[in-house]
């Protein structure tokens, strides 16, 4: 018989206001095997833990039940405290009476009754708990960063700085991401390229960092500390090692009509191209969709002009297998294409552009060499209208848009408005906003400067319709403060479109078995306390793939993710989850059912000698589980027809005991 101690947490008033904690302590104190039962204001606090440790010692407890918040919150805390007192941590169970009771029920009698039942179920389970010892597994001292934008770059640099190897996998021909396309950055207005490109060079020169550009993750196997990843290096038809990035091929290529994605399609590039001057790696890539040679077999100009013989039209995709201890998702975002909002004219009017397109139109390295000229007639616009929240903050049932605030648009729009007014004081600038959201250091001051010093017209209201008429964009909008409908003749309309996770994130999340929210942002292990970790061990999150954020926030999160990775890679061994499957060899009939359902290949079979009747020896084929590989899902336990396979910590008997306790009301 176990000697069980029960501890009921008040969680301040979170639990105690709805659950009669004294009554719960008293009722559970009468359960068989319970030798101590009490309640306390904050069990997770230092003194709460001391209370528990004292009780373990004084009452010689062999098992502990804490009735408190979700085990996802403090199970580890209480188990650690028990361990300090010499009790095996797996002898501690949690009954979740906060999330599952006090926070969702109002009636005290009902909540108290439910808390008692959940407590009884936990006690019933602890009666069957056995001390468990965690095994160990080695750690591959290398990290993978998926995505080479500013988030991935910063994470990789920080990990490398600590002395660990890092690979960056970037699907585009160069690292740099969205930040490379941006002109200036708020709130300081320093040039994005000036602060980003040195970091790109650092990455290229760091001998701990290996860049797989124009590459994608193909598959991920394994678990924390021991991932095996297949990377597809897409054929770029240029030998990366030979190419010097001289650019002669990109000048001579006769196919000039390829939309230039780096400039948001506002100008064209060649079929062989280097995305931009500071690209890393500075290597040309052939776009097979447009290359005349690839399509017709006739051309070959680039091959002829290449001085180092780097062009290889026969190049194939290559799959590289690499091992990692940790993986960081830094898959980034894209601004939404506003084709769902054509009342604003994006699909039909050339001079209605997105904010990222405007960045290119204002960038010195962009299609207009930094002079603001509108796309249709290359004339300087004299009236510019900005529309905020295009596709953001929509009702969840509105299939066109996103339910969240994209966070960065208010600030970059203020920046755009300010830059235009500064460079072209003859230009009138209107910003239509719902709310101006500027939480951040020096952010509101920045926005106020746009209004007060630069004379940007901020109008509370939205644009309802944009119609192009003889080169003029007729903007119909509301001014809610004056109660008017405005009709503005504009030359350029800029839409601040919602940020959305990169399309590749969904399939990457599936490969990583990392969870995502309904908007396809990666979910964090804990919204407040573990914001850079995925709930899946060994997977970390960096940048906008976790939620909308600006550059400083992205960089902070990137460094935080790196710190977590370093913490993991610094360990030589990892403690495994001891709640793994175990086969009872005496019951196993060697049918292989369990092996077939194991997603990790943790189950193997071996012929073993057993003692048979009359001192004979029998050779039987039995299953055995590799505890370092088993992740404890339990698929095998249900597949096993003979009941030999069971899961430690969640054994058949334990779960049945919980079922019985719940049903016995």
């Amino acid at each position, binding site marked *: 018989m176990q000697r069980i101690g029960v501890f009921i947490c008040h969680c301040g008033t979170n639990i105690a206001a709805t659950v009669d904690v004294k009554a719960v302590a008293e009722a559970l104190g009468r359960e068989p095997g319970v030798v101590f039962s009490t309640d306390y204001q904050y069990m997770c606090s230092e003194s709460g833990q001391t209370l528990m440790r004292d009780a373990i010692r004084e009452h010689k407890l062999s098992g502990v039940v804490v009735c408190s918040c979700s085990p996802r919150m403090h199970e580890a805390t209480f188990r650690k405290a028990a361990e300090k007192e010499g009790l095996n941590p797996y002898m501690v169970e949690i009954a979740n009476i906060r999330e599952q009771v006090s926070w969702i029920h109002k009636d005290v009698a009902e909540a108290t009754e439910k808390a008692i039942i959940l407590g009884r179920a936990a006690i019933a389970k602890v009666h069957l708990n056995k001390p468990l010892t965690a095994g160990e597994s080695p750690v591959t001292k290398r990290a993978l960063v998926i995505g080479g934008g500013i988030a991935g770059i910063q994470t990789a640099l920080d990990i490398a700085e600590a002395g660990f190897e890092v690979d960056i996998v970037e699907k585009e021909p160069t690292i740099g991401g969205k930040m490379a396309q941006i002109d200036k950055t708020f709130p300081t207005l320093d040039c994005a390229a000036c602060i980003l490109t040195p970091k790109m060079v650092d990455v290229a020169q760091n001998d701990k960092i290996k860049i797989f550009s124009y590459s994608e993750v193909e598959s991920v196997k394994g678990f924390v500390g021991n991932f095996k990843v297949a990377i597809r290096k897409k054929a770029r038809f240029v030998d990366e090692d030979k190419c010097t990035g001289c650019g002669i091929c990109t000048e001579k290529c006769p196919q000039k009509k390829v939309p230039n994605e780096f400039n948001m399609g506002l100008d064209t590039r060649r079929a062989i191209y280097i995305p931009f001057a500071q690209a890393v790696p500075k290597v040309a890539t052939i776009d097979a969709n447009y290359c005349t040679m690839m399509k017709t077999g006739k051309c070959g100009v680039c091959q002829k002009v290449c001085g180092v013989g780097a062009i290889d039209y026969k190049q194939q995709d290559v799959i590289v297998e690499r091992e990692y201890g940790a993986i960081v998702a830094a898959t980034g975002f894209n601004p939404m294409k506003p*084709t769902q*909002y*054509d*009342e604003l004219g994006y699909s*039909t*009017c050339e001079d209605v552009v997105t904010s990222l397109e405007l960045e290119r139109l204002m960038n010195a390295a962009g299609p207009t060499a930094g002079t603001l000229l509108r796309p249709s007639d290359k004339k300087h616009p004299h009236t510019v209208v900005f529309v905020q929240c295009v596709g953001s903050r929509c009702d969840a049932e509105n299939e066109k848009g996103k339910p969240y605030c994209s966070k960065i648009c208010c600030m970059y729009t203020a920046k755009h408005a300010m830059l235009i007014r500064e460079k072209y004081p003859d230009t009138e600038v209107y910003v239509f906003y719902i709310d101006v959201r500027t939480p951040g250091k020096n952010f509101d001051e920045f926005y106020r400067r746009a209004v007060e010093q630069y004379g940007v017209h901020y109008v509370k209201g939205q644009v309802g*319709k944009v*119609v*192009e008429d*003889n080169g003029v964009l007729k903007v119909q909008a509301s001014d809610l403060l004056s109660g008017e409908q405005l009709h503005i003749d504009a030359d350029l309309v800029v839409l601040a479109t919602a940020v959305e996770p990169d399309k590749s994130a969904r399939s990457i999340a599936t490969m990583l078995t990392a969870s995502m929210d309904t908007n396809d942002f990666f979910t964090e292990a804990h919204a407040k306390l573990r914001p850079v970790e995925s709930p899946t061990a060994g997977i970390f999150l960096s940048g906008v793939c976790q939620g909308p954020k600006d550059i400083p926030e992205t960089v902070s999160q990137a460094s935080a993710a790196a710190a977590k990775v370093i913490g993991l890679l610094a360990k030589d061994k990892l403690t495994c989850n001891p709640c793994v499957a175990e086969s009872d060899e005496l019951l196993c009939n060697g049918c292989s059912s369990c092996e077939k359902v194991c997603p990790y290949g943790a189950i193997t079979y071996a012929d073993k000698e057993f003692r048979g009747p009359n001192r004979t020896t029998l050779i039987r084929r039995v299953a055995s589980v590799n505890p370092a590989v088993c992740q404890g899902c339990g698929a095998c336990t249900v597949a096993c027809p003979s009941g030999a396979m069971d899961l430690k910590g969640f054994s058949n008997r334990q779960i049945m005991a919980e079922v019985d306790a719940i049903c016995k009301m």
Partner: protein
Amino acid sequence: MKFSYYPGCTLKTKAKDLDRYARAACEALGVDLAELPEWQCCGAVYTMAKDEIASKLSSVRALASARDLGTDLVTLCSACHNVIKQVNNDMRTNADIALRANNYLKLDTPYTGETNVLHFLEMLRDRVGFDALKAKVTNPLTGRKIGAYYGCLLLRPSKVMAMDDAENPTIIEDFIRAIGATPVVYGMRNECCGGYVTLENKGSAKKRSSAVLESAKSKGADTVVTACPLCLYNLKKNGGTDGVDVVYFTELLAEALGVK
């Protein structure tokens, strides 16, 4: 190809051309448009209130009778199309409206939105096919610059009409191309003409209609086509049509097929 056909009141009186040319064109295209027996006026506007049942009944009757005939229901007038499609959606998705409407009507088989409703243009696009139409054109309207006027009722609410992108539609433009003319895309093509408010506020209708036609003219349209008698009326009467002709799209269709 056989369809039930709901012409609607106005097509029997002031908008006979819309109907006449549609029938002539269908004959040329080998489409059998069978007018529903004993159809009644749809009410011309969809009543949005959830407690409005009586005003939806005539549409339900038409829908149920098309179902009983085992055919899809083709509508032509934008307003009828809008009303019948929205009522059909109510019958399909709003159990309360469906129950109450069926209680009133006492049909042999209760109606729950089984009929597929097609606008004449959808029928051309999805059943006949614009390519097949093009092949049958004997008198292509080459050189004509035609603006499509969608108005409000053909496309909105887009979730229910489900006919085309409500803000950047292409169905009439594709139709115009099929009959050999050049479509003119202009910004106001899906804005309101002033609708029924023309009855008591001519000023409002004038403003709306002239804004539409100005927009079409500025893009170089010589003709504007519509599927709605009220749009035609407003644009012609209140829009100031100097230099631009406003006609039903079926008239151009018949012309192109050589059956006008």
